[in-house]
């Protein structure tokens, strides 16, 4: 039997897991691993900062459903991954992060570029490993992919000391996985599902609340089928967008702090919330004690710890969203076949009225470049068929509000952690995962400057993403809060005219376009979509435009602030 190095074994195991692409950055303790990678046909994307590698792996995972893989060296390489890993953890994204580590004999000696990354990453990973024996590699890598991609997905970190990667091992060495404590519940308890079906049929004013779990379990189809039968309005979380088509009359879009007013009011008036794959984040619920005061909650989630964590639950169902919804649909059909179809005309017409009374609005007659107008145009010109990545802040909320998401895995956005600088590297990962799709990063000038070096990654690798930069020269979301809650004292949020973005993107070899007038918006987007290169469109938007509606922190979601300017329109 031939011997191979630990590094070669790692590559072999990654191949066996079906890994096609790795995002990474070499360094001292991963030189042997990169040497083995050099002979492999796995594609490697060299980023410019390890955080970009983690976000790109995350974006790749979100659009493909596969597990994203990133590599960094020990010490600073590993700590640079931390934000990206935490981001994936908060949004339940399957990821395997491999970090180099100092040699086993040096561990604990404060050696050069040593960091206790398994200790640092413990709270932000689903699980992590420090390899101490080359023979553990095949088992651990197999386990890592299982843990990352099953149950509630999440990131798994494998820390590998450099000597392990040069140790020799039989090339056919195999070891059985051993996960005695890991048994995610996939099939929901049928008794609970039956109770849920009955409760739904008996409710007068139900709403479905669909989250990221619907998308990650591939339950969007069955959700649509269930809604078709049950005719229940659908609200989504930010991460749930695309699980149900927003252009359907039963869609109420996103709820919460910057959600639609009609979604928030529907929650407030509902008598039943059917929650699937959501965790009732504070950005959705607002003041928890006044959230959906009249509603019972059916909560279906794969993670039992989410059930009852934030809101009181009447009927819990632990299981995979796709399987639970399939069972729920058939139980619901059986129930209404016996007892008749519930009449909810009144509720449905109330929902229709709410949508008519409280549409999203901005000043359409303004001559300025309104961000909402830009996003609407992007939607129109991509026919709603693009993958939209966002940065974090106002740009993210405008994208969520004004792009109509109709398919799962088309919105790539940092929900739980709210990571500025996520969008550009995530778009790179998304485009690699779905080269057939137009991939757009709706960006802000603050966020993108946190990762602008990744423009180089994109251009060098011919990853032709389109960046629609909503440039207001502010850290806009914070500025908005300062305006509304801090008497307009713009403490350190003005970054006006600090860089020429067109020149910046040109310096990296991409194409830059600038839009200062409303009438130029449409043509610029068209042009950006046509050019066979990375394109950044620098939209000089109305600088002090705010995101409305808005729930003030600590307020119930039924109380929304609206643009004063538009009052009476």
């Amino acid at each position, binding site marked *: 039997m031939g011997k191979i190095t630990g590094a070669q074994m790692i590559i072999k195991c990654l191949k066996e897991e079906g890994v096609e692409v790795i995002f990474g950055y070499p360094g001292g303790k991963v030189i042997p691993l990169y040497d083995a990678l050099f002979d492999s046909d796995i594609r490697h994307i060299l980023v410019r900062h390890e955080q970009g590698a983690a976000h790109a792996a995350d974006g790749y995972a979100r659009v493909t459903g596969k597990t994203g893989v990133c590599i960094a060296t020990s010490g600073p390489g590993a700590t640079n991954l931390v934000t990206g890993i935490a981001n994936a953890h908060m949004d339940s994204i399957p990821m395997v992060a491999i970090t180099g580590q100092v040699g086993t004999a040096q561990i604990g000696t404060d050696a050069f570029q040593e960091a206790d990354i*398994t*200790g640092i990453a*413990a*709270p932000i990973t*689903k*699980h992590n490993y*420090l390899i*101490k024996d080359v023979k553990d590699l095949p088992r651990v890598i197999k386990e890592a992919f299982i*843990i990352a991609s099953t149950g509630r997905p999440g990131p798994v970190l494998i820390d590998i000391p450099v000597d392990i990667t040069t140790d020799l091992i039989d090339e056919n060495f195999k070891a059985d996985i051993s*996960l*005695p*404590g*890991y048994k995610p519940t996939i099939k929901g308890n049928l008794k609970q599902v039956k109770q849920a079906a009955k409760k739904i049929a008996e409710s007068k004013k139900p709403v479905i609340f669909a989250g990221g779990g619907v998308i990650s379990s591939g339950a969007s189809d069955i959700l649509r089928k269930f809604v078709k039968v049950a005719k229940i309005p659908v609200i989504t979380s930010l991460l749930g967008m695309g699980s149900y088509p927003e252009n359907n009359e039963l869609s109420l879009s996103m709820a919460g702090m910057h959600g639609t007013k009609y979604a928030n009011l529907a929650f407030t008036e509902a008598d039943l919330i059917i929650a699937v794959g959501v965790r009732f984040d504070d950005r959705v619920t607002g003041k928890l004690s006044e959230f959906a005061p009249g509603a019972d909650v059916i909560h279906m989630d794969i*993670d*039992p*710890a989410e059930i*009852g*964590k934030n809101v009181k639950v009447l009927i819990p169902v632990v299981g995979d969203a796709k399987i639970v919804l399939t069972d729920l649909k058939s139980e619901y059909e059986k129930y209404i076949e016996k007892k008749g179809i519930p009449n909810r005309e009144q509720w449905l017409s109330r929902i229709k009225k709410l949508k008519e009374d409280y549409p999203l609005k901005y000043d359409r007659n303004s001559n300025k470049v309104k961000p909402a107008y830009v996003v609407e145009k992007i939607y129109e010109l991509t026919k709603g068929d693009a993958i939209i990545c966002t940065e974090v802040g106002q740009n993210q909320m405008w994208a969520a509000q004004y792009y109509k998401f109709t398919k799962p895995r088309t919105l790539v956005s940092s929900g739980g952690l709210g990571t500025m600088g996520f969008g550009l590297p995530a778009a790179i990962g998304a485009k690699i995962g779905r080269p057939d799709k137009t991939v757009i990063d709706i960006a802000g000038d603050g966020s993108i400057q946190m990762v602008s070096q990744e423009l180089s990654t994109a251009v060098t690798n011919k990853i032709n993403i389109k960046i629609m930069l909503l440039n207001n020269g502010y850290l806009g979301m914070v500025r908005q809060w300062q305006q509304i809650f801090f008497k307009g004292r713009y403490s350190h949020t003005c970054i006006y005219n600090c860089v020429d973005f067109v020149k910046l993107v040109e310096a990296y070899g991409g194409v830059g376009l600038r839009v200062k007038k409303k009438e130029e918006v449409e043509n610029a987007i068209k042009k950006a979509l046509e050019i066979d290169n990375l394109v950044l469109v620098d939209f000089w938007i109305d600088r002090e435009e705010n995101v409305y509606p808005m729930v003030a922190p600590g307020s119930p979601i039924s109380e929304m602030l609206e643009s004063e300017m538009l009052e009476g329109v």
Partner: protein
Amino acid sequence: MNHIISVLVENKAGVLAKISGLFSRRGFNIESLAVGPTDDEKISRITLAVNAEEHSIEQIIKQLYKLINVIKIQELDPSNIVERELVLIKVGADSKTRPEILEIVSVFRANIVDVAKKTIMIEITGNSSKVKALEDLLRPFGILELVRTGKIACSRGSKS
């Protein structure tokens, strides 16, 4: 409300750190913690005494279950368990006070494990209230050191 949680975990490096880390980052307090291998050397048992509300305890258990190395968790019913803690107490003692201390020790069925010129070391095993009572009685003599193992507990009868 006091709760005793018994957790079976894989006997691997770093598992205890993962458990104690979970408690601190979720804002739960551990009152005492005892850990040791079970009859199966691959599995360790961690006994945690926790003071928390009912809702928090439920969250603690659910969050613990999410740790991959956790195999099984039991919340023990305080009315149906044998609970023990071993405590070593070093008290000051001279020829005058020694007889009195020995008497207390014998009433509690504790053991003297070391006698020196000016000190006595006492070993006591029992539940919290017994330990507390002895501690109170010994305090006037001057407790120099007190070392406890943390609670361990086992449910009564055939239920495991």
